[in-house]
């Protein structure tokens, strides 16, 4: 049987993914990617790929009797993921580093190094499915709707899909834990990781200050304004805000206020009412497709945020950006987040949200 490289973060999901592949009789090689220098981070252990993650992954690999290696991808990760994360916040957007990592770093490295190790398949513990069909390989939403992670994988290069295995695609999280316990994997009851792996303090602004310094415009005070430009207060740096955010806007408004836009060139954080948060036209850049691209006028489905419901849309334009018109307006469409285009359960591709607007304004 072929040799499979499985990426093990040290969490229960990838641990079980490795175990299932071993059960199926594959020749399995486990790897953990070392993404940043742990000695610089005081509080490790809270996140998936920290130092404890490496140790947990190694223990599971030992239990399974498979070799385990650490891939040092610190340089690539810093450049492709952390630098981008910081730059996006500096531009007033809200990045999704997991998408960035999957698209640019993790899978490419796995594939390239996997080839060196004679591994013709790459596996991870993502809750997605992949169907290898004669007409190509299709990435599908995970069976467990609560855990589905297809949102994070639209950026995978199309030519790589044929090499991928996702052993957890048909399982629910509960089933994964149950099977991991039955196999007495050390990570069976490990809590879910919620933090961004390179922000162990849980507050990304600490990282921004470290990377940008406190005198950067993104971290300096600026005006809180209404859509019409009226200044209604001050904020402590626009990088601390994301579209849809309610906290940190001060009080004294007759109704609840939300961040509806960030204008970095004027350091403005635009706030408005819940109604003003809605938009029905989305501009999407940095596109990647797993299939032929949908043409202008064709109906598609789109997911605009992790765990958000899928929305019906129509391709309105395809110049430098893909423009989608949503069948019904959605709240808090956030520049920097991903827009993932589906056909039913199948991921067609996606991109990064550049901006959103109301059709009425066009």
């Amino acid at each position, binding site marked *: 049987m072929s040799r499979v490289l499985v990426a093990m973060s040290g969490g229960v999901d990838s641990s079980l993914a490795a175990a299932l592949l071993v059960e199926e009789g594959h020749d399995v*090689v486990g790897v953990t990617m070392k993404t940043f220098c742990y000695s610089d981070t005081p509080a490790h252990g809270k996140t998936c790929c920290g130092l404890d993650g490496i140790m947990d992954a190694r223990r599971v690999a030992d239990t399974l009797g498979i070799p385990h*290696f*650490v891939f*040092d991808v610190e340089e690539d990760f810093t450049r492709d993921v952390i630098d981008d994360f910081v730059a996006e916040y500096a531009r007033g957007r809200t990045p999704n580093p997991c998408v960035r990592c999957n698209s640019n770093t993790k899978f490419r*490295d796995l594939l390239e*190094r996997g*080839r*060196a190790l*004679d591994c013709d398949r790459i596996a991870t513990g993502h809750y997605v499915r992949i169907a290898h069909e004669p007409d190509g390989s299709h990435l599908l939403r995970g069976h467990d709707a609560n855990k589905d992670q297809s949102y994070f994988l639209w950026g995978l290069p199309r030519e790589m899909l044929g090499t991928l295995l996702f052993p957890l695609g048909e399982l629910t999280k509960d089933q994964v834990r149950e099977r991991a316990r039955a196999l007495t994997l050390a990570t069976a009851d490990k809590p879910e990781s919620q933090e961004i792996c390179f922000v162990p303090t849980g507050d990304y602004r600490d990282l921004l200050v470290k990377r940008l310094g406190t005198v950067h415009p993104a971290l300096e005070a600026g005006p809180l304004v209404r859509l019409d430009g009226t200044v209604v207060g001050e904020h402590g740096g626009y990088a601390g805000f994301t579209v849809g955010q309610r906290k940190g806007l001060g009080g004294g408004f007759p109704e609840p206020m939300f961040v509806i836009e960030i204008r970095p060139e004027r350091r403005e954080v635009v706030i408005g009412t819940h109604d003003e948060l809605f938009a029905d036209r989305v501009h999407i850049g940095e596109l990647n497709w797993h299939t032929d691209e949908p043409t202008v006028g064709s109906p598609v489905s789109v997911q605009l945020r992790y765990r958000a419901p899928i929305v019906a849309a129509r391709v309105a334009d395809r110049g430098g950006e893909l423009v989608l018109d949503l069948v019904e307006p959605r709240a808090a469409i956030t520049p920097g987040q991903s827009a993932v285009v589906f056909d039913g359960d199948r991921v067609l591709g996606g991109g990064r949200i550049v901006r959103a607007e109301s059709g009425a304004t066009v």
Partner: protein
Amino acid sequence: MTPVYLDYAATTPVRDEVLEAMEPFANQRFGNPSSMHRWGRAARAALDEARATVADAIGARPSEIVFVRGGTESDNLAVVGGFDALAEKGPATVAVSAIEHSAVLEPALRIEGTGRGRTTVLGVTPDGVLDLDRLHTSAATAPTLASVMWANNETGIMLPVAEAASIVHEHGGLLHSDACQALGKVPVDVREVPVDLLSVTGHKIHGPKGAGFLFIRAGRSVRPHLFGGSQELSIRPGTEDVAGAVGLATAVKLAVDEVATHSAHLSELHDRLEAQLLDRVPGVRVNGAEARRAPHVSSIGVPEIDDGSALLMALDLEGVAVSGGSACHSGSGKASHVISALFGAEDRFATIRFSFGRGTTVQEIDHAVDVTSTVLNRVRGATAGVAR
């Protein structure tokens, strides 16, 4: 073929004779050598015997041997403790070769980093020529604690320890030599080479891990950096590891007794591997080919490899256990400080360290060459682009 272990420079299995010698000290003769009663005396006797054995093996006196917990501790004690002793009398400096083990380099750089004295790093050429002029300059400024290894752990390159010693001595300094990779592979005798301090660890010579010694020539001083009881002349306080010392002594004696036959065996393996690789894999280089080298290491430079760690992993999966620079640094995929010091910055050049031991056979060497040439071709194609 069963997996082949060619990483004896990383560590070695404990010999049966060593294990046997150690065993009684785990239980029957468990006493504390500092106790005055018969249990203590029984342990003390074994410790004395071990010390005499080690001293005899390297041409020293028993009072010149301090047992410590391994090579890193021995190196650290020599560098920091030797410098401290010099610095008590006035300004002092440090000089180390650029290819020292990090257990020497790091404490040396720390002395400079904490502002206690200048540290000079002495260049070494791929032919094994040490920059003795710079050593001379450093030594002439102020008494120098110099550390020049007997044989390098990554390449086997042997440095001119005796010449370095005479330069250092002219100006009242101390010469330390890390002989962890040398003992048992080449003759190491402190009567022949006038080192002041010498470090050896057990696990490179089929002894136990965590057991080593520091030779301190009579009349030379080393200040402790652990404080407590008066064990080991107060230079290394803490209840002695009698079993470890006995195991170490047994391993040292066997290694020294067998050095001639063992080094002949190693040389044969090493010549065979290098000749075959040079013949079969285009573009490879033997690092330090023209230098005087200890015979248990072949460091092979491989061009057109973007990621050396992938190469080592691939070799492991095919059953050939080797390391890159040194095992302590494996996994980063980058050139080690030793390879960089010898050859400068080289793009797309990886290093494989093959190292041989008592159990290594000619068949294993041939197999390793076959696997290496196959794996190299695969890795070259696959990782093009990893280091984007």
